[in-house]
Each structure stands twice: as C-alpha cells, then as structure tokens.
C-alpha cells in the first residue's frame, strides 16, 4: 500500500539475524496469533523471526542468546591463544 507520492504506508525492515521491524502510518499494528491477537502499543514494533521469543509475536532479544548463523563475534584478544 502506498500513498499518492509513492511512500509506503507500512514498512517492513528485516534485521539480519534479528526481528522484522514494522512501522505503519495507517494504524497501530495488529497481529493475529494462535492465542488471539496482540495489538502493538508503540510506533514501531519488532516481530520475532527466530521462534524462540517468550513474548510472541514480539521480539524479546532471545535470538542473541544462542548466537546464530549470522551472528558476528569479536576476534579473540591478542594475549589469548
């Protein structure tokens, strides 16, 4: 859906190794999940994409705990083997 000047009214940003950010200037985001529905209360929301969140459908940062295929790590210290 776009407005008259071609700007999307709803934008989805896929964060590598993380959630999908959803921002909409039409209405608050309303997500239907198995247990019912969950209405966002903030201007931009993050939807879980790893399936491990404790706050479905929202991201709660859990994707960071186990790393993941796209997670980057610091190089080891110079004094470490």
């Amino acid at each position, binding site marked *: 859906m776009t407005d008259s000047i071609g700007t999307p009214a709803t934008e989805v940003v896929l*964060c590598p190794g993380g959630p999908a*950010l959803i921002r909409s200037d039409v209405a608050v985001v309303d997500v239907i999940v198995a247990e019912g529905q969950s209405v966002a209360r903030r201007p931009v929301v*993050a939807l879980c994409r790893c399936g491990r969140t404790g706050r479905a459908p929202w991201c*709660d940062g859990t994707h960071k*705990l186990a790393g993941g295929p796209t997670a*980057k790590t*610091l190089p080891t210290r110079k004094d470490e083997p």
Partner: protein
Amino acid sequence: MLLPRARGPLSGLLRHLLLEGTEELAELDATARGRAATMPALSALDDEDLQLSLWMIYELSFRGFDDVDDRWESAPEVAGLRAVLERPFEQALRDATTSWTERALAVDGDVADQVFALAAGFDEGPDLSKFIRKEATPDQVRHFLRQRSVYHLKEADPHTFVIPRLTGPAKAHLVELQYDEYGGGRSGFLHHELFATTLRQAALDDTWGAYIDDADAPTLASSNAMSLFCLHRRLRGAAMGHLAAFEATSSIPCRRIAAGLLRTGFGEDAARYYDEHVEADAVHEQLAAREICGTLVRTGDVTARDVLFGAAACLVLDALQATALMAQWEDTGASDLAEAPL
C-alpha cells in the same frame, strides 16, 4: 532538587560558587586544573569529587537546582570549569575502551554488527541481572534501584539534545525511539514515570535527585558520560553508539530484573518498568544500531570508531557500576543495608 552535599574540595568550592557567587573562583579554578593535571589514567572514572562536580554542572542544563540561579548554566566560569573537568574524564573513557573499540572494529560487518558483537562479547564485570534474578535480597534490590534512579528518573533526556545535530533518516529514527521512551505521547507512560512507580512500590522516594548523595562514582560517571556525549556535537557518534549499546544490553537483563523484583515480593507494578523494556528495547536496539548508527556511518556523518567508542564506554561504565554494587554487598550484610538511610 537542592544542590547535593559536597564530596571533596572541588565539589565544595563549586557548591560555594553556585550558591554564593564568585569569591573563591581563583581557588576553584586552581583546584580543578590541579586535579585534572595530576589525575592518574582511568582514576577520573572513580573520583567521586570530580564526578559529582561534573554532574552538578551538567544538571544545570537539565532540570537545574531549586537553590541555584539558572543563569549559572551559561556563565563563563562554569563553562570553563566544565571543559577542564571533561578533559580527564573523556581521556579516561578513551583509555578504558581502546582495546574493546579496536576488537569491535576488526569484526567483519557493518557498524551494527560491530555494536552487537561488542555487546555480546564484552565480559568485564559481574552479571548483576542474574544476581538480582536469583539471589539478591529485597534490601539489595532497593539499593540497586536507588543507584539506578540517578539516570532512570531522567531516562532518554540526554539523547534528546542530539536530535538537532542529526539529519535525514538517522534523525527520524532517533525521534521515533525517543517518542517511545516518552510514552508515545501518553502522560503516565514516560519511561521515567514507570521507574518512579517502581521506586514507590519499593517504598523508596521517587523525587528527582532524592538519592544523589548516595550515588557512587560509577553511577555518577555513567550519567555524566551520556551528558558528555550528548551535549557536544563532536561526540554525537559516541552518543548514538552509547545508546545502541545501552539498548543492546537491556532486553534480556530487564527480563531477569523483572523476575528478581517479583521473586523478592515487590509486585507487578514494581516490575512493570523492567517488563516494558523487554519488548521496547528489542525494538530500540535495532533502531539505534542499524537505523541510527548504521545510517550515520554509511553516510559518512560519523565514523565507526566514534560509534564504537561510545558503545564501549557504555559497557565499561555499566561493568564498573555492577562491580561497585556487588563489592558493597560483599562488604555489607543485608541487615546493615536495611539500617542505612534510604
């Protein structure tokens, strides 16, 4: 709030200047310059007298003091003193973060990947949130809340000063993040109002500045670092890197702290501030790291090194705060804390 009590000669002379006028200005200037010149590396982060003095000066740009004329904020005597005190503070932050910044810069990826890798790999200091979830006594939790009140009761305010220094998408996303911090325009839902509720539920004073006299040096330094970064245009990259690291180390610890507040019997109203931050900061970390810092570096407005300096400073100061709290808890039995003035 009233000016805090002095913690040494510097804050004593500064108090006198702000309350009484300029009689001892030469002595204050000499004391500040002498302290700055002779301060060993890193010790600025642990110097109560210096940190409290800086905190008092910065606070003139936020809510001020009931017993101080607001005109002191832009008085040349105070601006000059601020510059003298900021120099060893900034240098100490750079010294404490260089190795972390270098390691983060070596991560193959964009600055957001580097911030997330730094936050995940940073291993200084004890894990305070795990301790609060599992072991802390109610008095230790209240001690933690008193220290955190120094920043959380003005949460997000420093970063608002950065908005006019950014342009385009980075500015739009910082405003978006701040709007959420300020409750989406709903009075009563500002994050610092949610923290005030937490304080009241823990039978603590939610008045701004109520516990400033108890704030330890790392707590003052953490608040001061945000003011330093956010009140200087040249440090806007560090300000946004600090924000990104703060948000990237928030969701999971907040979930643990909320569990700790429930475990120690403070109730759901007390835990709400932390509960709100589990979801909020899972959004904010992406906004800050990718859409704010990522854009700023991609467009050449700031460097990745600027951003990572601020990010590492946030983590180092957080570790110093955690270390100080845990050390105090090891030295002092919970019963002694209960008897200490609130």
